[in-house]
């Protein structure tokens, strides 16, 4: 039996009819065709499906679509104009933060949330903070450097804005 839900996805109201067993990730990918959200392990371990639910990072593979009724969902597509996300993407490009790119959407969402909460972390602390996002290509070196670089660029942008104000 399908259940009707309504939610906001990337700022737009969405109505959908879902089976209770449908994950948020499947709703996003199969129904809404938002395929930046990748599905790896489907058991909450790999982090590729990380999205924002009501502004908080969460695993879309272990959130039931039916349970997010009334929530505000944001995927990587919904952050394509976001200044912090643009800074992160540029840093991932500069510092070789990706190879195959499968983990990248989840990595970017986790890094985005991390820099908003804790903009001033050491490389070791970043490593712990992204331990819930598995990458099988880079050995994480480039990813950690990318996040550090984005943090520096973001801080200098913030300083510049403050000086101008």
């Amino acid at each position, binding site marked *: *039996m399908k*259940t009707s839900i309504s939610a906001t996805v990337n700022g737009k109201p969405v109505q959908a009819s879902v*089976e*209770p*067993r449908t*994950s948020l990730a*499947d709703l996003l990918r199969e129904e809404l065709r938002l395929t930046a959200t990748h599905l790896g392990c*489907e*058991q*909450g*371990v790999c*982090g590729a499906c*990380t999205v924002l*639910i009501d502004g*908080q*990072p*969460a*695993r879309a*593979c*272990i*959130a*039931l679509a*039916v*349970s997010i*009724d009334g929530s505000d969902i944001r995927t990587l597509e919904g952050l394509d104009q976001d200044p912090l996300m643009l800074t992160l993407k540029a840093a991932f490009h500069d510092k070789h933060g990706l190879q195959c790119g499968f983990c990248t959407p989840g990595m970017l969402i*986790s890094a985005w*949330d*991390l820099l908003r909460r804790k903009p001033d972390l050491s490389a070791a602390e970043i490593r*712990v*903070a992204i*331990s*819930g*996002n598995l990458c099988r290509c880079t050995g994480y070196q480039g990813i950690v450097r990318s996040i550090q670089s984005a943090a520096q660029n973001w801080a200098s942008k913030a300083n510049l804005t403050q000086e101008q104000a």
Partner: protein
Amino acid sequence: MKPAPFTYHRAASIDDAIAHLQGADAIVRPLAGGQSLVPMLNLRLAPADKLVDLSGIHALRQTEERPDCIRYGALTTHAAFEDRLVPDASNGLMPFVGSQIAYRAIRTRGTIGGAVALADPAADWLTTIIALDAEVALVGPNGRRAMAGTDFALGPYMTAIEDAELIEFIAVPLRPAGERWGHYKVARKTGEYADSMAIALIDTARGKARLVLGATDGAPLVLEKSAREIVAGNTGDGLAAVIRQELADSGRDFSPEKLLLHCTTAIRAVANSEKR
């Protein structure tokens, strides 16, 4: 993998949830944050005919400060402890524990009530609330009851929760300001379930100590004899020998490697309490 089909009810209140959890031969499970249950549904390890979603029940999200304790609603998330969005009864132990469960994207959804109800021996909250001498408050078809964490945890994934009962809140006594806590966890990877974990609470001024070992193959072990030795001033190798003996006498079937691991974890938790 995808879960097998099930039906779903979003409970509007505690009474509504209990009503939907009751009756029939069907397997009905309450859904809190879903960070353990949904992976188990996806892997088809946990059968369910129906889920009763508790996330809409406002009463289960409340925190209440009382003169002698703080009542944390069952749906308080790990992240709420980590971010100190709820008051702390534990001199910083609960915020610390909340900050190192799994990963941030799990902590924003996973709840203390859900974790305690599942009673995974290798998870964090059950050992923590037993160390803190907390009470688990249950509500069900026959009304309300509360019990000590030690009476609640019966074994691996086994608790005193009866049919259609829910955890309403966890009541953590306000720990004395002079009490120091030490925590130590061995896990193969950051954010993984523990191979061993221990929490020591030591109050030298009041002459009290508590030492609890988790991630055993059963309910957390309260090491009372070792705690008395800590109060008596025993440290180092002498204390390690007492802990080792108490673990060996506990009736659990520890291999020599596990015995060494758990003993080391307990000793390090005691040592960490010195640093606070």
